């Protein structure tokens, strides 16, 4: 023991808290308590996936349903979540094997320029997405006749409470998981609009009817649906949270279960939002901006009743609130890792000021912006997802490079089949993002006719 003492570097609060969590994992594994072990190791995957079932995502799904009904977008959501599972499994694996976050590894392995580019992309998309989260909370609260001030205050109080309860990753994770469970409200809303289940099955099997109408709107919804399921912040978050939680290579199986469970739940709840939104197809003309003005919950009320509308509104508040917490966490991880300062929820706030300040700062900026009267709320929400889609390929390429890095990953590098799928995902996302960006730009400068 004396010999061990000499080899141990100085211990931090972060080390001891993580060690306490690992002790429980060790005992659960030793005593063959498999379900308890899974309970202990669940977290980053479910939070990344349900966190991404956020306000703009649910608005995007509901908009797709409202504009096009059931059809192409229902199976498309399942496809995008399958893509998300592949990407997020890589994040979890790299985090568990290297014990380092994504931002830190990109910065150290590929140099400060690429590291700061990645962090810059993340911060830009996170601020825009956080605005959209507050928009979602505002839309949900508007149904209860509560204004933007309450939405801003609610989001900020949640961030403050989780930070002030701080100094413990486990506690932070369980609070957010407890809130994320209510993402299931979208499934309840879907059931309450009494959809024609045969049409749901037909859409899932045949990908039809294929959406018609404006080509550019279709591209926007495809790009924003992708951005609603795979985003830069999820990559930063799950890898850093896996390292912060203390996952090791011996936990990879449970990490995969966590990621798959998160993906399946998020896909089901996301389809719920689309099905609920599809109830609006054919009503009021279902123009996207029109729905934004009325608010989805208010539009649902005459069709599906007050209870369904109330549940949808509560779902939007929950989706926005959980995402405010997880996206703020990803910003904090990225800033802490790139600055080389403490970047763990196991760090005490007074010893990790910049980490916790970054956590709060993004939410503070976003909350301030939604208080501006007349802001184009739905447009911000949809474009936040599109921007995430456009910036995603760079983050994914570095993730694939890290997951194939023999020096870092040893025997846990990607399999060839995983690489083929991951490269196909990057190509698909790049094409979809570029198609929307170029088409809408050419329309905006009047080089091609609108439509």
């Amino acid at each position: 023991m004396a010999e061990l003492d000499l080899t141990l570097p100085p211990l931090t609060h972060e080390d001891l808290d993580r060690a306490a969590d690992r002790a429980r994992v060790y005992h659960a594994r030793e005593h063959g308590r498999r379900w308890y072990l899974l309970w202990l190791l669940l977290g980053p995957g479910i939070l990344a996936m349900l966190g991404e079932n956020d306000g703009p995502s649910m608005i995007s799904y509901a908009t797709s349903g409202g504009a096009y009904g059931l059809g192409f977008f229902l199976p498309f959501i399942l496809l995008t979540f399958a893509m998300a599972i592949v990407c997020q499994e890589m994040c979890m694996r790299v985090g568990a094997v290297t014990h380092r976050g994504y931002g830190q590894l990109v910065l150290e392995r590929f140099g400060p320029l690429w590291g700061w580019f990645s962090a810059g992309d993340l911060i830009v998309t996170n601020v825009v997405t956080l605005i959209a989260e507050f928009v979602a909370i505002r839309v949900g609260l508007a149904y209860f006749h509560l204004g933007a001030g309450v939405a801003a205050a609610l989001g900020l109080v949640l961030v403050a409470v989780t930070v002030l309860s701080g100094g413990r990753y486990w506690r932070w994770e369980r609070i957010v998981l407890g809130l994320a469970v209510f993402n299931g409200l979208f499934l309840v809303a879907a059931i309450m609009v009494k959809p024609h289940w045969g049409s749901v099955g037909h859409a899932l099997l045949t990908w039809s009817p294929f959406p018609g109408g404006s080509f550019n709107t279709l591209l926007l919804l495809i790009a924003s649906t992708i951005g609603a399921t795979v985003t830069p912040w999820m990559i930063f978050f799950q890898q850093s949270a896996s390292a912060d939680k203390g996952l090791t290579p011996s936990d990879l199986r449970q990490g995969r279960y966590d990621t798959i469970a998160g993906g399946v739940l998020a896909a089901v709840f996301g389809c719920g939002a689309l099905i609920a939104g599809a109830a609006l197809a054919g009503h009021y003309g279902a123009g996207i901006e029109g729905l934004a003005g009325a608010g989805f919950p208010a539009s649902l009320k005459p069709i599906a009743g007050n209870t369904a509308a109330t549940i949808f509104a509560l779902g939007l508040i929950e989706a926005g609130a959980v995402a405010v917490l997880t996206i703020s966490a990803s910003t904090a991880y990225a800033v802490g890792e790139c600055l080389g300062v403490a970047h763990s929820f196991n760090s005490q706030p007074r010893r990790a000021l910049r980490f916790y300040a970054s956590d709060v700062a993004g939410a503070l900026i976003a909350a301030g912006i939604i208080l501006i009267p007349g802001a184009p709320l739905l447009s911000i929400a949809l474009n936040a997802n599109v921007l995430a889609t456009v910036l995603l390929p760079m983050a994914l390429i570095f993730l694939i490079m890290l997951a194939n890095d023999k020096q870092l990953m040893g025997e846990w590098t990607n399999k060839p089949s995983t690489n083929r799928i991951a490269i196909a995902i990057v190509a698909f996302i790049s094409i979809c993002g570029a198609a929307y960006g170029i088409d809408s730009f050419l329309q905006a400068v009047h080089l091609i006719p609108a439509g």
Partner: protein
Amino acid sequence: MANTPGSPAAPHNSPQKGEPSDQQLVMFLEHDQLAADTSVPVPRALLSRRAHTALWALRVFIILVSIMVIYTFAANLK
């Protein structure tokens, strides 16, 4: 960084009943999991010129498309 297969995630000596000491508790961590270890930078990767060129090409492409998306968003606001 990657551990050799079978590297000990388990403690060298199990903690006693009651409150374990810090030294005993920390044995539940892998050695490279300590904050002091993770703060040591990993060595820089050596990228080929082709890889550099591909990364820059993707970077420029992404910046151009981002500008288009942001311009369109701003134009639609007017």
